[in-house]
């Protein structure tokens, strides 16, 4: 019997199931994350992203299936080598930024110097400020710093920019990109498609506890869309034109048309006297893919 090939994956998730009394949060999920990439887990709220990530982090026990780190079940080694930023974390009251970082640094055998962490996360000027007095963006930077104290091989970021203003979000993305440049493996969950497009090398889209698509963002887009999108303001789109043989979708203020045949579609719109002054043509993005796959209807 030939020896089993050594898996190049840093993290492997196999047939993961997590059931709660009332619901199945994760329903048979498998994927692997090679070293050095940023892996994005996307999905609407309640899709099972956070549950999947928390099982991967060793925080939640799975109902079935397993997670392997460097080919081994999660254990002490994983805890020493993983950095984690939860969706919501409070720190101890009254501790300064530096003290918070120092506390967590003291929990690991190896890692970065406290000053180095403060520098990476641009927290030097805030070092003496109490953590509870930081703004949302500063707090996320501190929590990221805490996730970096052990110089982790794998970094988990669970919806790290939810609730941040656009500027703080951009700052945070730049930080993550600089960490990516240090060849860290990153597991990112998000429901911001822009974030995923910018940061992720590979993504898995989850819905209702299952993975419904997986691959590099560009490949997923080209697989699912050989089409372009046309957008028209709703008021410019006459009712009569709805009878045309077009793939239509209504948003709150626009009508979207998806098509393989741009010229043919434009000709039929002109023939139906649809005004094209405000017409926009664009390639589909991850958000379109996300909506295409997870459905566009409102969920209860």
């Amino acid at each position, binding site marked *: 019997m030939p020896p089993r090939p050594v898996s190049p994956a840093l993290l492997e998730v196999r047939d993961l199931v997590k059931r709660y009394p009332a619901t199945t949060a994760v329903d048979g999920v498998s994927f692997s994350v090679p070293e050095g990439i940023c892996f994005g887990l996307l999905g609407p709220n309640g899709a099972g992203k956070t549950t999947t990530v928390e099982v991967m*982090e060793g*925080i939640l026990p799975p109902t079935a299936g397993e997670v392997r780190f460097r080919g081994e079940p999660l254990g002490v080694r994983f805890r020493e080598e993983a950095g*984690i930023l*939860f969706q919501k*974390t409070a720190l*101890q009251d*009254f*501790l300064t930024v530096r003290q918070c970082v120092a506390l967590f640094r003291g*929990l*690991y055998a190896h890692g970065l110097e406290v000053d180095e962490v403060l520098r990476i996360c641009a927290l030097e000027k805030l070092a003496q400020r109490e953590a509870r007095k930081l703004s949302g963006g500063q707090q996320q930077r501190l929590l990221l710093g805490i996730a970096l104290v052990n110089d982790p091989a794998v970094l988990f970021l669970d919806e790290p920019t939810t609730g941040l203003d656009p500027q703080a979000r951009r700052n945070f993305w730049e930080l993550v990109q600089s960490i990516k440049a240090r060849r860290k493996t990153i597991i990112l969950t998000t429901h911001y498609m822009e974030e995923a497009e910018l940061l992720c090398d590979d993504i898995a889209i989850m819905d209702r506890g299952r993975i419904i698509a997986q691959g590099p963002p560009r490949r997923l887009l080209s697989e699912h869309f050989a089409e372009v999108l046309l957008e028209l303001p709703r008021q410019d789109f006459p009712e009569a034109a709805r009878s045309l043989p077009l793939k239509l979708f209504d948003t709150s203020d626009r009508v979207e048309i998806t098509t393989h045949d741009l010229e043919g579609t434009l000709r039929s719109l002109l023939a139906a006297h649809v005004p094209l002054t405000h017409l926009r043509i664009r390639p589909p993005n991850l958000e379109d893919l996300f909506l295409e796959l997870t459905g566009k209807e409102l969920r209860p």
Partner: protein
Amino acid sequence: MMRRLLSVFHARNLEFLRDRGTLIFSLLLPVMLVVGMGFVFGGPPRPLFKVAVLGAAVEAHTHPFLAERYVQFVPLANESEALRKLTHQQVDLLVDFAGGTRYWVNTDSPKGYVVERLLLAAEPGARRQPVTGKAVRYIDWLFPGILGMNMMFSCLFGVGYVVLRYRKSGFLKRLHATPLTAFEFLSAQVLSRLSLILFVTLVLYLGIGTIIGFHSAGNPLLLALLAVLGALSMIALGLTIAARFSSDEVVGGLLNVLTWPMMLLSGIWFSLEGSPRWVQWVAHIFPLTHLLDAARAVMLDGAGPAQIAPNLLYLAATTLVFLGFGAWSFRWRID
């Protein structure tokens, strides 16, 4: 392991010291209590003579002295216990009618002098055995109780609510994602609270002790050992409650369920001697009862290690049981 434990220990100490409100409150409350109690109970004792009679019961018709008015006769079966009370002037005279009347009188007690005249009037040939000893004021007796009560609240609520707050805020969950173990975390909490309580208790002991002019009769090192074991036992008890639950109501309710019976039955305010046997039995389940019994024995009677060994053992044993149960049932996150 020590490195992780010390990190959490240090951070918890910093957090407490920065929280000025809690710090001041934990020093101020016991001072106010002692001042208040001293004011209420510190007046002169009531003008009633109290005579202890060795034996199981007192029957008035067996001796003319027992028919005296304005004298309360209390039967005491245990001679050494009765002598201790006489030394503290908790009784004014001790009489033994078995086989020729013998009596003990505290020569430092004015009431003892008067009631001795009454006895000698009834039976001039009674044999006299003098003892000496200053009266133990109620405030002296109360002092260990107040220190113990403060310790109890600080241990139970201080630890219980802190761990609950950590769990609810997700801080525990974040710690769980590090190599820190439950045992290390709990030990750090115990040590942090223990150092704090010992410091506060020492400040109160010296401060209030000076104000009320209290002098301990026993060995201060033994008292320190007792304080350490008593605090450990009650911190560990607080941790068993905080180990699992995530609801303020449940934790608050359980802490109250524990503290109120301890407040009433552990002998903080009044001695349990003379109360029904089942009350005493229940009272001796609580670590605080053992702490106070032993503390009073050392502080008021100068008891040595051998005399309070059962109390010390009980406190040590309960510490281990509570800590073991707490670590076993510990939850890092809200289920």
